[in-house]
């Protein structure tokens, strides 16, 4: 048995007690996130079954998942779903699609250019910006290490 201090034990009890919102939230997130990934896996298995090449398959899987995410956002289902699943609906790529679609719908009333056009990336923009920036940093390091 591993020894733990009283403080640690109290902390553990707090985490694992049945009323802990953290634990139930995590279970929900785990289950929903897992299900979305399984759905993605099913799509990609089906695309392989249809005889689609490896490269196109992964791109098409992403496109289909994004399509589903955007449609569910349009019907106002994804936000309800998000309240239940928390990170389980936010972390998968469908959550990224939801972030863009929900901003677009929300800011429609401000017009098509200023509203939709500008606010489209108000939630998903940071992900795109820092994702591209990080990949640029990795690219620079890789390129330098390659020529040395």
């Amino acid at each position: 048995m591993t020894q733990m201090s009283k403080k640690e034990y109290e902390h553990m009890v707090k985490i694992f007690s049945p009323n802990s919102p953290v634990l139930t939230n995590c279970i929900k997130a785990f289950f929903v996130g897992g299900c979305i990934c399984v759905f993605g896996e099913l799509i990609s298995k089906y695309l392989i079954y249809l005889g689609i090449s490896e490269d196109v398959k992964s791109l098409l899987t992403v496109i289909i998942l994004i399509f589903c995410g955007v449609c569910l956002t349009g019907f106002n289902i994804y936000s309800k779903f998000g309240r239940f699943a928390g990170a389980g609906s936010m972390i998968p790529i469908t959550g990224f699609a939801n972030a863009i679609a929900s901003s677009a719908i929300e800011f429609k009333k401000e017009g098509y250019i200023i509203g939709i056009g500008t606010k489209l990336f108000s939630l998903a923009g940071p992900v795109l910006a820092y994702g591209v920036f990080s990949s640029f940093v990795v690219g620079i390091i890789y390129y330098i290490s390659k020529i040395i």
Partner: protein
Amino acid sequence: MIKAFVVGGLICTIGQILIDKTRLTPAKILVIFVIIGCILSALGLYEPLVNFAGAGATVPITGFGHSLVKGVINEIDREGFIGIFTGGVKATAAGISASIVFSILVSFIANSKDK
């Protein structure tokens, strides 16, 4: 299939713990996840996870970071210096374009519920 479920679920659980236990906003958590995906991919740790879990590793947003870095590295190998700028977005173009196109189409049709 079970591997995809468990790995995908665990990545989301980490996100949920960050939401509940820290004061980080969802946007910050998503940025952290993308950067972690980039770093793991750069260290060569993400590709084995993709081979193991399939969609369980590619569907979460960390997979987006992985695609960006993988695209940059492949493009540098093929095209040299210019790959640093072209590779990342090229590899993720499908996802980015699809989100923009579908979102704009849906926003034409759907209306915000809270007025």
